[in-house]
């Protein structure tokens, strides 16, 4: 009998060991040797802006962002200097900007950053040529939800003509002219005004879709290189108050900007549990040599159509 009791105890101990896990802190110096400079910069044909900061080591005493406002930041076309970006904002530390430019499409531009203490870095990109939206075809689609209910949405097929023999990186979004309520806390009154706001209830099942960032649907031309393609998005019909204007935007990103947005979005969406279970963490793309961040460019085109909405909130 005693033997049996011991055996049962042994079994329970084994199960306890199986179900438990051992935790051990590995003595590793996690502080990076050097803080790197970080530049985040966006360029269009008429301006370039940037914000400069320092990276944060995992075990740095301060985990807050330190901006650099004393660095020299210049834009080059090849070896020709176009100009220095000005550190012109009193309220935004580390913010630099250069306006009134007339930059060329599909030409490589280089951003050079120099700082007396932290050294230098460079990044290169080019502004893609804008691609126009040819047509937008609206239809109604019934979509089933996971719980078995169905929902009617508007399906918009936005047709574009992709440029052949080059990789293009796109995003599409839609803004709707809507009545916007504004609550005044002081007077405790509602007022409203008309504004074009992004359609918040957008979705896409398009096969070319490559994820989304904020209210932009990202897609590449891998599936339709050089051909005409209709990218489809669904928008809840209740997003449209009435017969109203809807302006669709097509953004053509530089490869660098697109990869940055795609990976930044993917990293922020990834949860820690999946990493513990073995999924590999997402690396955020950087085209900055000698530091972190990105230097990206884009061009923009748009097309406005009239949409007959559901009159849920009629315009006044």
């Amino acid at each position, binding site marked *: 009998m005693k033997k049996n009791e011991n055996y049962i105890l042994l079994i329970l101990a084994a199960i306890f060991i199986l179900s438990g896990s051992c935790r051990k802190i590995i003595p590793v110096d996690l502080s990076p040797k050097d803080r790197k400079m970080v530049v985040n910069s966006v360029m269009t044909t008429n301006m370039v802006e940037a914000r400069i900061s320092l990276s944060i080591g995992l075990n740095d005493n301060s985990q807050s962002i330190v901006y650099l406002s004393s660095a020299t930041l210049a834009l080059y076309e090849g070896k020709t200097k176009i100009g220095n970006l000005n550190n012109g904002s009193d309220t935004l530390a580390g913010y630099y900007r250069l306006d009134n430019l007339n930059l060329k499409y599909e030409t490589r531009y280089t951003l050079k950053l120099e700082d007396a203490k932290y050294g230098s870095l460079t990044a290169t990109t080019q502004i893609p040529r804008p691609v126009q939206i040819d047509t937008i075809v609206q239809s109604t689609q019934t979509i089933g939800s996971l719980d*078995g209910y169905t929902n009617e949405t508007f399906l918009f097929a936005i047709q574009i003509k992709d440029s052949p023999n080059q990789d293009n990186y796109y995003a599409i979004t839609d803004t709707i002219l809507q009545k916007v309520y504004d609550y005044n806390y002081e007077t405790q009154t509602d007022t409203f005004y008309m504004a074009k706001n992004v359609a918040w209830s957008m979705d896409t099942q398009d096969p070319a879709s490559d994820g989304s960032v904020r209210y932009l649907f990202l897609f590449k031309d891998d599936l339709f290189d050089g051909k005409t393609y209709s990218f489809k998005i669904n928008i809840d019909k209740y997003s449209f108050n009435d017969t109203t204007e809807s302006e669709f935007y097509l953004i053509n990103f530089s490869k660098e900007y697109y990869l940055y947005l795609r990976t930044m979005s993917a990293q922020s969406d990834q949860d820690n549990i999946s990493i513990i279970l073995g999924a590999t963490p997402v690396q955020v793309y950087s085209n900055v040599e000698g530091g972190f961040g990105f230097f990206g460019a884009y061009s923009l085109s748009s097309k406005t159509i009239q949409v007959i909405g559901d009159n849920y909130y009629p315009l006044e």
Partner: protein
Amino acid sequence: MKKNVILYLLLMLSAGTYAQKFTISGFISDAGSGEKLISATVYDANTMRGTISNNFGFYSLTLPKGKVKFTVSYVGYKSFVLDTDLQKNMKLNINLTQSIELEEVVVTDNKVQKQVESSQVSVIELPVKTLNKLPVLFGEVDVMKTIQLLPGVQSGNEGTSGIYVRGGGPDQNLILLDGVPVYNVNHLFGFFSVFNADAISNIKLMKGGFPARYGGRLSSVIDIKMKEGNNKKFKATATVGLISSKLTLEGPIKDENTSFIISGRRTYIDLLIQPLIATLGATQGALASGGYFFQDFNAKINHRFSDKSRIYLSAYTGKDKLYAKLTELYDGSIFRTNFGLEWGNLTSTLRWNYVFNDKLFSNATLTYSNYTFDTPIEYYIKEKLFDSFKTESYSLKFLSGIRDYAFNYDVDYIPIPEHYIRFGVSNTYHIFKPGVNTFKYKSVDASQNRDTLYGNSNIYANEYSAYAEDEFSMFGNRLKFNAGLRFTGFFVKQKFYNSFEPRISVRARITNKFSFKLAYSEMSQNLHLLTSSTIGLPTDLWVPTTLNIPPQYSKQIAGGLFFNIKDIVSLNFEGFYKTMDNLIEYKDGSDFFSQNVDWETKVEIGNGLAYGGEVYIEKKIGRITGWIGYTLSWSTRTFKNINFGKPFPYKYDRRHDISIVATYKLNDNIDFGMTWVYGTGNATTLALQKYAVPTSVLDIVGNSKFDYYGSNYYGDYTSPSTVDYYESRNSYRMPAYHRLDLSANFHKKVKRGTRTWSVGVYNAYNRKNPMFLNLEFSQVTSKYNLVQYSFFPIIPSISYRFEF
């Protein structure tokens, strides 16, 4: 040129046919159990011409007429020798009796020399007897964990049964149980494999130089044969262990022509922890039950119609089930939740062996295989509303799996000892279920009821193959070749893929005890395993080649030097170089649980490269037996959209991998086992820095027109967020893995049979090996720590086994 080749082949086939010849053929079996002996050596000791028995114990040896010293040997058995004057064809079924292993050198089949003689490179046969002597986790003898101890084979994470052969993935191993592919070989998230060692007779691992008769996977073939069942006498084996018990019964039915074996295993963790769960539930005011178990059942029956004809029927079924039930009673209302995870395999084989004549053997096989993974979740609510009850129930179920129906026909033709020709065809019909969800809702109001099905639709595919190979020797057996060609076709969704895969291996015997081998093989694989976990989760999805996902393809060159040292120790040095195309991986940020239901949109296609060297020193004879294996290897992957197109180390890229395995037989009653393993730490990805990025798009400091209602309403977009900086994928190495296991087996003959007490210690020096690493912030030091989680500290085990 073509004429010359034909002429040469005819000459080869007719070589030695000038003298009159006769054939000795038959089957080789164990005298005690009747089990067929695979790869037994059959030769004429006078001329040293010989062959080996095939997978069904059949042999055929054609010799010139006259005096022959016909000899059959097999490791651990007394040799059979027959001096005869060969004047006609002979049918000779041979029963070998087991030898006493204590003698330092017994007359045995010389397995050591066989390594030198064989034309195959990168092949290791694992003696099943050794399995029971080695120390194992929780005392559970595990075929896959023993295979992990061989050079060129890497284990996955701590304690798991996954194997990674020469830089390949876990899906690239063709694991055959009686000829049927087993898709999920894991129990308990990979800590145990599905193979019950008591029901297994033979295990062979191939890592390269694949003969044409094998195909369908890139990296390895693990050919596992089930026992046929003792046809001499009834025998039972029972084992009681810490977490499971096993029972095996085998014996003849009526006479020696028919025999059977059945073997079952079940864990009882669920039964033991049930009271704990109930107590825990009671403290929360709920009725709780739950647990986990796995079970296996093997069965095989065979019948010999005649010396020419034999039929086999075998089956395996195994299941894992994790379940939890929680019932809460509150003020007359009932809230009940059921949750489960269930997965398992069912395989079956109907096989017919037919000997057309003394040189022609055929094997026809019908197989069925089904793997399913199921996650049922159910909610039931009976809510009290004043005088009435409101009842409703929900159920959500995810189901995935793969089902195969296959037919194979294989022929062995042995015209003369210098040629062993094999050819065959096969057809497999696959049904892939990449994941279907069902949602049901039932309430009092019937109009609200729902019964919905959504997810990936089934994919149907047909896979064909045909092969031919010839193993032939030249120059008095100094040169030996195995040359073959395999054709594979795969028809899926109106798309047809096909490939011709050349296979060739050559062995040059430099001296009687030393040979050099070289092999080249191309392999294709029409199945992919989508896996995002490092442990053997059943959420891994088997998916086929499709219109967008091409077949995997590999090319491997392997070669080596093989030495026989005094017929006791074999010493092998091998090198390999392998390229792999069209591998798939989840895209960055995607995994099994991500929302997009179409799996094809979640994967990236890329390539792999693996190369390295292996050393294998094995001692098979004497009191001390075992092996030392060392692997030095590199394995990388390159995907266009992962790691920004730059090559990165494979997760299980392991620079150094060492195994030392030894058994020591003190006497007939006591033997000891020991294993020690060392491996470079697994590659992982860590972020040691972070940096600021803008929260808005198209500008750096907010005010984007594409933020909902602009920056004035929701949040301050002038404040950036931060992202983690990962230098490169898998650029950080976990601490090295090493572990010592010890065991002792105490045998005793008792009244009705033999009993064995086995005691063991897993991880004897209590090494905390890494399962995974996590960066955690300490509130005490206000610093991040790199924290390692380990699963298995020192674990003793004990089991009791009884045979009669």
